[in-house]
């Protein structure tokens, strides 16, 4: 890259951490101007879909067999498979109320956990713990959901709030450890994920939580008064109010980050903790607060799953959504609006992938490949720029110089 020599020229850049933080910003999208921030994800998604089409082609054995004898038909067959797969993917995600409902259901927890990771990135923190925070939040929502017998107007908000608070506590612990001892949040959040996973395994077997009459680890059912209400009477259209919770949460995070002093301080800490400290901000306190809010969002995501589609807790009900969230926050450039869009895209891939497998026998595992490729291209913005010869290079250079100075 052309900016390499400039790195050499500046003695500042040689300090360890400088290059890391520049890369961090470019990957997470923090501090990148919005046009470049939009362009790279868009191109990454398109590239991932193109590469996946190639993968569909080379895994279509019937067509591959034909290449030797009838290349014309083979080409038509291959093209047909790719077209059918992507048409099914689109239809399964957006065609009709039921399909779109499935997309939104899948998107809601992804948006909430994505916000959790994104707000961490904004403040320069890696929250790798949404999975554990989700589990703890979901567990709190489960217990409030089955233990209390309250009218729905109180019960549902209470259960959601319980999820939020439990997630905030679980997220706040690594923040506190970072502030008080300097223990890095990447390590502590990952470890707390495992503690949460094993804790859920244990707690589901206790007589207080376990469903009566069952030997297996499954919680009691949440009372109907705590469930997120559905929009339609048709039992096959499962869209529930969780998507509204997710959108409100995104709006809240946007407001917090860009319209409040606290949000300004978060971002200042993210840009340069030393300068923020010099400017009189309590950086250590910020770490705790950011991680607690991040944990709260993930906890809300867990509560959303329990009070929405699941109704009861089982081991590992978070199902890896907390890890998908990291990819999602990267794709969404750590911006609340970006996270909502990325959440919708990932939700659409999930809902559409099912239809793709049913209709065309293209394995749903391809969706994981698409998601993984998106992350690869996001994490290597230089690659995307090189492929498409995008002129954002100039802008990036200017930004780089700005930081180096």
């Amino acid at each position, binding site marked *: 890259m052309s900016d390499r020599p400039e790195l050499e020229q500046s003695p500042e850049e040689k300090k360890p951490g400088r290059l890391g933080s520049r890369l961090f910003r470019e990957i997470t999208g923090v501090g990148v101007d919005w046009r470049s921030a939009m362009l790279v994800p868009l191109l990454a998604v398109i590239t991932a879909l193109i590469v996946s089409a190639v993968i569909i082609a*080379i895994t279509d054995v019937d067509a591959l067999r034909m290449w030797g004898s009838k290349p014309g038909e083979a080409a038509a067959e291959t093209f047909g498979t790719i077209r059918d797969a992507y048409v099914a993917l689109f239809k399964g995600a957006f065609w009709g109320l039921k399909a779109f409902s499935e997309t939104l259901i899948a998107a809601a927890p992804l948006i909430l956990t994505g916000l959790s990771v994104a707000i961490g990135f904004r403040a320069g923190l890696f929250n790798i713990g949404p999975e554990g925070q989700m589990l703890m939040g979901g567990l709190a929502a489960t217990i409030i959901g089955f233990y209390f017998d309250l009218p729905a107007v109180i019960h549902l908000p209470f259960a959601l709030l319980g999820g939020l608070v439990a997630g905030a506590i679980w997220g706040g612990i690594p923040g506190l450890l970072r502030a008080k001892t300097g223990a890095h949040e990447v390590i502590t959040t990952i470890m707390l994920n495992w503690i949460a996973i094993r804790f859920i395994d244990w707690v589901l077997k206790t007589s207080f939580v376990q469903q009566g009459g069952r030997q297996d*680890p499954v919680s009691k059912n949440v009372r109907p008064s705590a469930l997120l209400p559905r929009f339609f009477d048709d039992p096959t259209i499962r869209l529930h109010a969780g998507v509204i919770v997710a959108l409100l949460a995104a709006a809240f995070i946007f407001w917090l980050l860009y319209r409040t002093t606290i949000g300004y301080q978060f971002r200042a800490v993210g840009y340069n903790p030393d300068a923020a400290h010099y400017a009189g901000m309590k950086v250590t306190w910020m770490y705790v607060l950011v991680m607690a809010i991040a944990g709260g969002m993930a906890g809300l995501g867990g509560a959303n799953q329990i009070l929405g589609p699941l109704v009861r807790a089982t081991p590992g009900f978070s199902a890896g959504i907390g890890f998908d969230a990291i990819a999602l926050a990267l794709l969404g450039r750590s911006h609340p609006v970006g996270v909502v869009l990325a959440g919708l895209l990932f939700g659409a891939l999930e809902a559409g992938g099912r239809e793709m497998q*049913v209709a065309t026998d293209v394995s749903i*595992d391809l969706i994981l490949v698409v998601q993984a490729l998106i992350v690869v291209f996001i994490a290597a913005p230089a690659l995307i720029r090189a492929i498409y010869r995008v002129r954002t290079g100039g802008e990036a250079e200017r930004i780089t110089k700005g930081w180096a100075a």
Partner: protein
Amino acid sequence: MMRRRLALVALLAVFGLVVAACGDDDGGTTAAPTTTAATTTTAAPTTTAAPTTTAPPETTTTAAPIAAKICEITDVGGIDDKSFNETAWRGMELARDQLGVEVAYLESQAATDYRPNIDAFVNEGCELIITVGFLLANDTALAACDYPDQKFAIIDQQPEFYPGSPWADADGNPLCDFSQVRGLTFATDEAAFLAGYLAAGMTQSGVVGTFGGINIPPVTIFMDGFVKGVRYYNELNGTDVQALGWNPDTAEGLFTGNFESLDDGRAFGENLNDEGADIVLPVAGPVGLGTAAAAQERGFLVIGVDADQYLTAPEFAGVWLTSILKNMDVAVLNTITNVLNLGSVGNLYVGTLANGGVGLAPYHDLEGTVPADLAAAIEQIKADIIAAGGLAAFLTS
């Protein structure tokens, strides 16, 4: 996370298959089979194997019109787990080859997928939907109530009505009429008992071990029968072989907590081996493959589950002492036959030693190491269990 790694491996494997498939293209292209390459190639060698499969491999598929579409939904272990889901899928493939039905499957990535997967197949017009496993019980029950005309079969579950049952409300009353749902259940402990007896007779160290995926009845029934078999051996022969990993009296034991992580399978196998166990029974679908890999490196033996894993996972051929067969393929084929011939799913299916629904796989490479009198004793116990009409009756007699 583990699924992610699996997916990557699967992708590489598929790529390998493609390369292999291209190699034998001699221009003699045949009509396209409808399933994907991965499933046909992995399942092909296994069909001839299980002693109870009724499929003569030479059965010629006549170009009959497609009778019906039969659909399978896996749990999170995936269709190619070389064990649980794959055995059920083999029954689907037998039905495709013998009965000319169209078959399809959907893999569940998470518990939230079960219901949408069922809905997707209902919309697809599947004549019969087979949900593979205990974990799908709640969603199968609710879907069966929402679609009273849709035929279902569920493995390891049957509509039962007690408080806390997936099929009943809080008072134990049925959620709805489940006459279109067939339970496919297995007295797996009968076969596991034989495996426990075998392990106790084969161990050099005097210690054997087991662990499960999740603490649910269809898993623990393996461990239960296994440990009881070990105890029975001790009782009969005056030995003191220890069985680690499961206590039938307290219903507590070792569990990985998932059906996905091969790494957990390795770790649990190594831990049991460190504790002295030289024969390990992993009851966790694909997780057991991790144990087999550890066994191959360290030189202990593993007992397979569900399918004859000597055949489904031949890369670990030397470590499979035997396998506890749970012939879900027979049950699935039987149900599909019922649907086609009778128009209904049929009554509850219970696989036993007597009807061949469960059994012990051959010893294969280790045939020579199993003493003749031990093998004979196992045959005798098997006959006695069948004669007594079940394991419980056998043990009390």
